[in-house]
């Protein structure tokens, strides 16, 4: 089984976000970058499938040169080789990213293309299904359960108040959600071996998309609300506020 896992370098969720001088991007000074956590589920799924079925796991990233480190992290977890589509600019345009990745993946004869369901920087939820559409492959997104048998598989994805069960044929695109597995830690030996694994760097050009950034801003801090009252006698006022003002119950 030949599996590609697309990964992205993103700021750690714990990072404090500061807006850069241009007002359109984040100030990267002091920001720690990590392998996108949802992509870790994809890497783990690929490694487990390889352990069961044999084959090869190829990690593909799109990003600046610094993304090499992100690819190495996935290699340290156990992937076989890496490809970095190296761009000078990062872009929030998901379709542009999908086109570049699709062009790389098209000729690879992969049985599975795995993505995290979203990247925790842009929250686009988009690149996996877009790549599938561009390559005309079946796709199940946000999966939390997966079974592959022969040339087909069954995946489950959580929806509001239920779980969709989706059957699909290979080759296919899957995007992974929390709950699918528990990603492994890279072992010391894995990290040492990762340094020697092949990592091919290919230059690509990111085109501007159809959305133009006016600004990136930090949302206003939540300001406190009001004390509706003291003691149990305030309960009716609270319920009234929740029903008619906030409309949440």
């Amino acid at each position, binding site marked *: 089984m030949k599996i590609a896992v697309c990964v992205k370098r993103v700021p750690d969720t*714990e990072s404090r976000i500061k807006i850069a001088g241009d007002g359109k991007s984040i100030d990267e000074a*002091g920001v*720690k970058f990590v392998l996108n956590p949802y992509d870790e589920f994809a890497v783990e799924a690929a490694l487990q499938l390889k352990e069961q079925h044999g084959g090869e796991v190829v990690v593909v990233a799109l990003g600046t040169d610094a993304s090499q480190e992100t690819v190495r992290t996935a290699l340290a977890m156990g992937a076989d080789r890496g490809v970095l589509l190296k761009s000078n600019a990062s872009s929030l345009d998901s379709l542009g990213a999908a086109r570049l990745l699709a062009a790389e993946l098209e000729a690879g004869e992969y049985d599975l293309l795995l993505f995290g369901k979203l990247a925790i920087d842009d929250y686009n939820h988009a690149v996996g299904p877009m790549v599938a559409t561009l390559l005309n492959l079946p796709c199940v997104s946000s999966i939390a359960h997966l079974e592959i048998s022969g040339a087909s598989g069954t995946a489950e994805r959580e929806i509001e108040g239920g779980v969709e069960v989706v059957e699909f044929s290979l080759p296919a695109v899957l995007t992974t959600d929390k709950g699918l*597995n*528990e990603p*492994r830690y890279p072992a*010391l030996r894995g990290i*040492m071996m990762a340094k020697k694994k092949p990592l091919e760097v290919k230059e690509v050009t990111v085109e501007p998309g159809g959305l133009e950034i006016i600004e990136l801003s930090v949302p206003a801090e939540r300001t406190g609300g009001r004390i509706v009252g003291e003691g149990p006698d305030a309960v009716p006022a609270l319920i009234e506020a929740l029903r008619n003002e906030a409309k949440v119950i």
Partner: protein
Amino acid sequence: MIPAKAQPPLPRDKLILSEPPGDERIEMDVLFVGGGPAGLAGAIELSGLVKAANEAGDGPGQISIGVLEKAGSLGEHCLSGAVVNPRPFRTLFPDLDDSDFPFQQPVTREAVYFLTPKRAIRVPTPPPMRNEGNYVASICEIVRWLGERAQAMGVDVFPGFPASALLVNGNRVIGVRTAPSGLDRDGNPMSNHMPAADVVAKVTALAEGTRGMLSQAFFEWQQIPSANPQIYALAVKELWETKRPVDAVIHTLGWPLPGGAFGGSFFYPLEDRVAAVGLVVGLDHPYRSLDVHVLLQRMKTHPLFAQYLQGGEMTEWGAKTIPEGGFYAVPQRRHGDGVVVLGDSAGFVDVPSLKGIHYAMESGIAAARAIFTALTANDTSAHMLAAYDRSIDASYVMKDLYRRRNMRLAFKDGLVMGGIKAGLMTITGGRFPGGKISMVSDAAVARSSDGAVPFTPDGTLTFSKVDAVFKSGNATRDTIPSHLITGGDVPGELAAYYASVCPAGVYEVVDGKLRVNPPNCVDCKATDVVGPRWTPREGGSGPAYKRM
């Protein structure tokens, strides 16, 4: 109450293992344990020496150099003031200019104040504290920068891998065992469990930082004494985006410290509107309830600090101990067969000048040179590595420490007497009063008075310990097994003492009993000095300092 009476012993049987390394062992030539200034400077110097010798045709060939670091990323467990003496940077990088180093700004103005509750009285800057030619810097940034240099020179840096035990064969250190990951609260492996790995090396350089566990175990195992026991201070530090610029390096003495405690504050500008504020207090004080975190919170309400901080934002918080014993607390031997001990782990800190980073780096450089010679001679025995001790003993590191050997120790009698004695020591170049002021370990000091001051944080200028731990970036998995050894039944009074010592709220008294919250731990090691023992835990646990 004497804390030492209830302190569990160092778990030496867990820290020194004389079993053979596992079959899956990883082999290296030289292993630095700890990716701080000492370990990274050593790794950089060693790789430079190897490269130069190989190019000249008389080198030892390919030498694998590894650095194990317990933090998830380099620098995340490093905390210092810091005003840095650039000397070892110039030694390590002779081709670079000071402006290439990861410093924020040179010290141009400095001031020392004596604080009363409402006032700040300017006092002359004691000569050892003068910082002309030094730079304000963040140790996190220094370490990340050194890490990049080291990796560019071919050093393998492994963040996220704490060394949990020394592997030994007879009297020889042959490597370390890393801490396992992915254990649940009861110590059972989870699905992502990663077992411990053995790393063997011809030379293991212990650069664990303050109160290093393997270093302590090594000195104890080899029965290596020091003239005085090591003593420690606890520093609690915050990083602030200030309301207005802080334009000088400021130190303070006095309030809010009680008279029996030795310590002071620092207030360093990193950028126009970014400053570090911290309070350092010796752990040899006589109080049961002295709480450095709370003292720092109270100190910030003083007009001297509040005028800058009020209306600003606290962006980071952290804590760390500092070895303060100086010259007489440095172990007589910092090497053995296949092993050297560097930096804070060896006690190379000078309290009067409030510095340790440059000594740590210098010790790394000296060790690298001795290791290089040993590797070239294919003999990494104690005999060859003794060159490291000789080199440090002859260097400015030990000369500085010797000149100010009694200065910190003088303060065990209180601030006023200590100040007078320290002044005389400065004037006489350390000749007065001569000899050695004897010290006991911090844990052996009786806590005879209470010293509690009630305090309620306001959440904007002053913070609770829980909020502080959050600002340390600590996101330790809550389900890891406890890494702290409390030892037996802890009576309420002792539990309350631990709760006041620990700046991170790891220890609490609930219904008169000790409750331990291990995930809060920021690896400052304060209670390891006077109470419950700290042991290495899953890699990447603890704080995630960014600019401390």
